C-alpha cells in the first residue's frame, strides 16, 4: 500500500486540518470536480473536520451520472433486442434506464458482461465471431485512451463484430458550464487528478485566466484532498487566481503523451448531452469518421423515443452543485440505492450515493 498509506496518515491529516482552520478567515465555496473526490471526502469523514466556513460543492465528475438516459436505453435495447454481447464497466449496470437497467436486462437473459478493460471486449469479439460485441464506452478523459485503444486493436485484428457505444465527456467544458451557470456561486476548483494524469494541466490555464478563479489539480486520498483544499483557500485568502498542481506525483503539465496520442488518433471533439445538465458544446468525444464502422450508434439503426427523466429527481441541480443530495425531497425515501430515481444515487461516485452510504450519523435516514 505504499503511495497510499502515506496519504492516509492521521497525523498529517490533523496537521492540514489545523492549518486550514488557521488560514480561513471568510466563507468560501469550493467545488471538487470529480466524483471520486466526493466519495473520498465523505467516506473518510473529512467534511465534518473542515471549518464551517468552507463549503464543499460536489461537481459533475461522475461519468455514470451524466450518461444520458437515452444512451442507457440504447444499451439495454442492443442487449435485449439485438442480442449483442453488451460489455460495460460495473457501475453502469444498475443505472436505471427509462424501462430497465442493464442489470435487469441481464436477469432477463441478455448477455451483459462486466469488464475491467475494453481490451477484454475485443478479445470477446475475437472469440465470438458470430456475435456482435458492443462496449459501452462511458467515462471522462481517464477511460478514453483504453477505449480508443480497443478500437485500434479491433481494426488491427480486422474485426467486423466489435463496436463501441460512446458517451465520452470532457472535464474542462463542464467546469466552464458550471461557472457560467447563473445559479453558480463557486469560488475555486479542485480539478480531477486522474483526468489530468492523462490530459495534463495546460487545458485549465484559460479557465483560470478568463474567469479569475483558482484551480488546483488534486488527488483522491485524504492528505491529497486536504492539501488541495488548503492550496485553494490560500489563493482565495490572498486574492490570487492560479493554476496549481497538488497531484504532481502523477500529473505532468503535458499529461501522458502516449495516451493523448491514442485519443487523438481515434476520437474527435463533439457537442455532448449531459444527463441532468443538458447539451454542452464541444464537451465530448465521438469516433472519427474514418472509424465510423466501430461506432455502435451508427452501426445499429436504433430508433427509440427519448424518454423523459423522473420529475422528482433533482440530479441536475446536484451535479451543478446548486443543491446537496439530502436537500432533495426524495433522498432516502423514494430514492435509495436499491430504488434509484436518478443516476447519482447509483454510482459509487455519485454524490447522492456517497451521502446515502457514508453520510453523517445525524443525517442518516432511519
Amino acid at each position, binding site marked *: *500500500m505504499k503511495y*497510499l498509506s502515506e496519504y*492516509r*496518515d*492521521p497525523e498529517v*491529516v*490533523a496537521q492540514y486540518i489545523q492549518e486550514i482552520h488557521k488560514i480561513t478567515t471568510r466563507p468560501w465555496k469550493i467545488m471538487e470536480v470529480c466524483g*471520486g473526490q466526493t466519495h473520498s471526502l*465523505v*467516506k*473518510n*469523514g*473529512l467534511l*465534518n*473536520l473542515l471549518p464551517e466556513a468552507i463549503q464543499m460543492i460536489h461537481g459533475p465528475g461522475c*461519468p*455514470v451520472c451524466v450518461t444520458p438516459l437515452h444512451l442507457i436505453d440504447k444499451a439495454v435495447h442492443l442487449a435485449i433486442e439485438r442480442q449483442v454481447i453488451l460489455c460495460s*464497466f*460495473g*457501475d*453502469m*449496470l*444498475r443505472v436505471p434506464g427509462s424501462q430497465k437497467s442493464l*442489470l435487469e436486462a441481464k436477469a432477463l437473459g441478455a448477455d451483459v*458482461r*462486466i*469488464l*475491467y*478493460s475494453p481490451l*477484454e471486449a475485443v478479445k470477446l469479439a475475437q472469440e465470438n465471431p458470430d456475435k456482435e460485441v458492443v462496449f459501452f464506452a*462511458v*467515462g*471522462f478523459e*481517464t*477511460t478514453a485512451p483504453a477505449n480508443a485503444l480497443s478500437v485500434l486493436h479491433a481494426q488491427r485484428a480486422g474485426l467486423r463484430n466489435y463496436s463501441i457505444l460512446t458517451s465520452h465527456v470532457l472535464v474542462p467544458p463542464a467546469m466552464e458550464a458550471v461557472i457560467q451557470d447563473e445559479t453558480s456561486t463557486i469560488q475555486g476548483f479542485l480539478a480531477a487528478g*486522474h483526468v489530468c494524469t492523462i490530459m495534463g494541466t495546460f487545458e485549465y490555464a484559460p479557465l483560470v485566466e478568463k474567469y479569475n478563479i483558482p484551480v488546483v489539480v488534486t488527488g483522491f486520498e*485524504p492528505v491529497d484532498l486536504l492539501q488541495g483544499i488548503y492550496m485553494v483557500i490560500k489563493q482565495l485568502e490572498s486574492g490570487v487566481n492560479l493554476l496549481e498542481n497538488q497531484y504532481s506525483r502523477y500529473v505532468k503539465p503535458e499529461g501522458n503523451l502516449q495516451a493523448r496520442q491514442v485519443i487523438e488518433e481515434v476520437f474527435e471533439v463533439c457537442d455532448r448531452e449531459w444527463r441532468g445538465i443538458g447539451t454542452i458544446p464541444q464537451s465530448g468525444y465521438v469516433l472519427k469518421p474514418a472509424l465510423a464502422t466501430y461506432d455502435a450508434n451508427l452501426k445499429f439503426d436504433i430508433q427509440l423515443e427519448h424518454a423523459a427523466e423522473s420529475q422528482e429527481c433533482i440530479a441536475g441541480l446536484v451535479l451543478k452543485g446548486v443543491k446537496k443530495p439530502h436537500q432533495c425531497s426524495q433522498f432516502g425515501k423514494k430514492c*435509495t*440505492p*436499491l430504488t434509484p430515481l436518478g443516476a447519482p444515487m447509483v*454510482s*459509487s*461516485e455519485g454524490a447522492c450515493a456517497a451521502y*446515502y*452510504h*457514508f*453520510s*453523517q*450519523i445525524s443525517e*442518516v435516514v*432511519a
Partner: protein
Amino acid sequence: MTNLAIQLQCPLPQLDFDIITLGHGSGGLLTNQLLEKGVFKILSNDLLDQHHDGAIFELNGKTAFTTDSFVISPIFFPHSNIGELAVNGTVNDLAMCGAMPKYLSLSFILEEGLRMEEFWEVLLAIRVACQKAGVQVVTGDTKVVEKGKGDKIFINTTGIGLVHPQAQTGLQRVQAGDVVFVSGLVASHGIAIMSMREGLQFETDLQSDTQPLHLAVKALLDQFGSAIHLLKDPTRGGLAAVLNEIARDTGLGIELWQKNIPIAEQVESACEILGLDPLYVANEGIFLCMVAADVADAFEQALRALPEGRQARRIGQVVQAHPKQVVLQSAIGGKRVVNMPIGEQLPRIC
C-alpha cells in the same frame, strides 16, 4: 488442489463416460455406477454404506440443524474448490450455533457435460474436508440437469450437530459494552474468487481462507462459556452485512475501529484497484464474536493462541448510541455510517 497424496491413492475410477450425462441422474445403471464407484466409495462410512433412503441415528442433547447451497463460480479456485467450501460452510454454520458438527447430507445438481475428473476432484475435496472437520456424509442425492440449465455443479449440504453444553449464544444476549472480535483477516475469500474470474490476474497468490471453525469455537466455549454472547460468520455481504443485521435485530449500535480491522496487504491493494470496500467482501474461514467486556482481554489472548485466531483483532464494541447503526471510526479520525450492502458490489469505472 486437494491433498495430492489422497488423489494419488484414489485415481479416477473406470467409468463408461468421461463426462456427466443426463443418464447419470436417471436413477438407472449409470447413476448406480456413479454412486458405487464414486460417491459411496470415496465418502464411505457405516451409515452411508447402508445405501438406504435416509440415515438413521441417535443424538443425545440439544441439537443444531442448518442448510446451505453452494453455487460458486468458478468451482475451482486457488488451493480449494466448491467441495471443500460446501463442507466447511455448513460445518461453520453449525459452529456459529455453538454446535459441534456430526452428520451432513450432500446433494449435487450436476450440469450435463461436467468432466468426470472435475467431479472426482470435488468429491475428493469433500472427503478431505469431512476428515478435517470430523463429520460424516450420511445421506445425499445426485441430479443431472441439461447443459445450460446449471453451472457445472451446485451443491447443497445440510448439517446436524450437538450444541456445546456451555453455549448460550444468541441475538438476545448481545448487550451494550460487548466487545466485537474478528478471528482473522477479512475479505481474503471474496478477493481470491474475484481474482479467478474473467480477465483479472493478480501477480500475487491470493488464497481463499476456507477452513472449519468449530474446534476454535469449542475451545473458546470450553473456557468462556456464557460470556460469549454471539458467534457469526461474515460470509456473503461481508462484515458490513452481518453487523448491520445484528444492529438492526438487537436495536443496539455497533462501533467499528477501522485501524484495527485486519486485512492482508495484497487483499487491501486488490480492493483499492477494483474499487471495492473490504467491509462488503465475502469471507469464509473467519468468525465474528461478541463477548462480555469483563472477559475481553482473556478472550483476546485465548483466541489469538488458537491456530484459527492468530490474526484475530478486537475491532469494535456494542454501544447504546446510534441504535441500529454500524458506525466506523475511519483510520484518520473521521466517522461514517456503514450501511447494509445493496445487491452485489459492482466495480467502479475509474
